[in-house]
């Protein structure tokens, strides 16, 4: 049946993974806040921005057609890099603890 690794027995490891989870959670909350604001907050006020033009583009159309996608990609990239660093940090700490 499903094999699940028992959580590492060392208490140090436990505290480490709790800290790691706290960091992950905070990062997730921040990124979701950006995601939410850049999507729903912006779209709610899209009409007001319709008359604003930047480099020939109506701002609201540009954002909806391209800008938001780029923000989403940035969110995913930032998450990927930040998590990689957090994981490295965690493994280093584990290495010192043993």
């Amino acid at each position, binding site marked *: 049946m499903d094999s699940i690794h028992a959580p590492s027995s060392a208490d140090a490891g436990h505290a480490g993974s709790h800290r*790691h989870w706290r960091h992950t959670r905070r990062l997730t909350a921040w990124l*979701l806040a950006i995601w939410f604001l850049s999507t729903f907050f912006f779209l709610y006020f899209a009409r007001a921005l*319709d008359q604003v033009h930047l480099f*020939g583009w109506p701002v609201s159309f540009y954002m909806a057609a391209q800008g*938001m*996608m780029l923000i989403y*990609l940035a969110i*995913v990239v930032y998450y990927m890099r930040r998590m990689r660093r957090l*994981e490295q940090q965690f493994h280093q700490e584990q290495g010192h603890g043993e």
Partner: protein
Amino acid sequence: MESNKDFFRRLTRYYALYTLGFIVFLCVLALLEHEGMPRTWIGYLFLFVTIGLYAAIGVVCRTSDVPEYYVAGRRVPPLFNGMATAADWISAATFISLAGGLYLQGFDGLAYIIGWTGGYCLVAVLIAPYLRKFGQYTIADFLAARYPGKAGGNVIRILAVCATILISFTYVVAQIYGVGLITSRFTGIDFSIGIFLGLASILVCSFLGGMRAITWTQVAQYIIILLAYLVPVIWLSAKHTSVPAPPVAYGVVLPKLTAIEQLLEQDPKELEVRRMFQARADDYALKLATLPQSWEEGREEVQRHIDEVKRNTHASLAEIKAASRMLSSYPKNEEEARRRWNEARAVALARAQPPTAQTEPFPGRDAEASDIKRNNFLALVFCLMLGTAALPHILMRYYTTPTVAAARKSVFWTLFFIMLIYLSVPALAVLVKYDIYTSLVGSSYAHLPDWVYYWANIDKINPLVAIHDVNHDGVVQLSEIALDGDIIVLAMPEIAGLPYFVSGLVAAGGLAAALSTADGLLLTISNALSHDIYYKVVDPSASSQKRVTISKLLLLVVALLAAYAASLKPGDILSMVGAAFSLAASTLFPALVLGVFWKRVNQPGAMAGIVSGFLMCVFYMLHTTPAFGGSAAGQWFHIAPISAGVFGVPTGAAVMVLVSLLTAPPDDGVIALVEHIRSP
């Protein structure tokens, strides 16, 4: 076994060669066309070469090994998994209809672009890495392990399987329908034969090699989709602007388009045509108001007309036939008259409206109408995003990467490859619109371009394009053109005057999009049945050989069922695909996310949440869709039925939290599992 790096390098080499080969194939076809090869031959060549190619990859990748069959051996490099997921994601609807929606609805069509990319933020931070860390085979596996009750998680497993099948089946039928549509339009073969041709290629692939064959085929399909979308758009950008980069180029065209739109809105000839449509709509309104009398009068009039024609000895056979056709197509009874006249009135009313401005957000007659549009836009974006993050056939792909970090990276590549195409979708819509507004509008009826005749004759009952000289001035007005959204992509090469091999390429791209999505969906359904129902519930002692065999058999059955459903040409099922997103969001999303982020959620809570989210969503759809006996008057806050998830998700989540708090917390095993999933 070779290392991941060598494997990656080998794959890159193969696909680079493959892309080069395909480009050479394109050049050869371009040359052959130049030498005078007939169009149908080019269509056939594209159809058979690409389908044969996918089948060949399936044969090369055949396997019966369980991890290979279910999760491609968990060694798909992130870049290639991203490409395969993007192909899985880009369905027939995205490829064919997305640009058409943008063309017809302007800003409102962007809801799909935003929803279908923003959803990947949720996949990246809330779901994919945790699923990979969990590391089994299906979505139901995760839910069953996270919410085991006294019966051992099978209850929740069966719920999850039902949701998976319901969501995936409507979706796969639409894909196979798309395959039939594309093959029949481009090669002239029969719709049902087209379906079974496509099916054959899907089956060779998934039947022989499961996830492994599908993944490598999908990468190949993605490359074709990308070329098929970008080559014509780049061509079009180069034609209308000096910049051959579509996302930049249409910024140059937009102000010009807006200027033309404003001109056409006030043009006296346009106003005249729109007034004529308004008069037509008023006429229908009057007839509807005086039912059943108007129906009887109308029938008598038709009868009188027939008698007159028959009395006239000089009437030709064709005239008599036309007259009797008028009678046979006249509504049979009052009921039918009401329905058909209502439809006709709606069509006339829609055409009496001034053209939708391309860039204006939420245009409406007054502030209230505009607000309703905005709220629906927001609701649709919400449902599409959460639905994306809960579609089983997409989530399943993140089991196939070697590590958790690779899963995160692969979400990035997925979004990147989807974006490569999505950035050009609005560009395509705007450039085609500009082309039509400048070259077709204002031209003479004596010199209509060929594509108009070609596409008008493909489907006589629901013509894809209809241009009639309503005000008899011999000049094409914008209001006289009725286009089906699907035509924007499929006919775009002809509209822009590109050579025919580009049309063939676009068709091959649409076919690849439909086939790749159908592949992934069929595998998801058959895996849910064979792995979750047969192996986990019915016969847990089945040997791995037997499991894979059962899965293959089920795949065959499901594929045939889906093809049969598609061959009935169910119009309603196409609209249900949009509903699949709301359903996925309402049923699976809360259970998946809370399962990782809240330790306290337990089995009774999850079950109650899934069921109530589902019921809420279905109730709202039935309650507000006229086709199911509801009515638009039953809408809450004027939200359209496609966005039922806006009510389903909060209901499901709230019930899940409440019931969990009222019942006993999950046991230590579950807590250990959650900690395991969360730890790096």
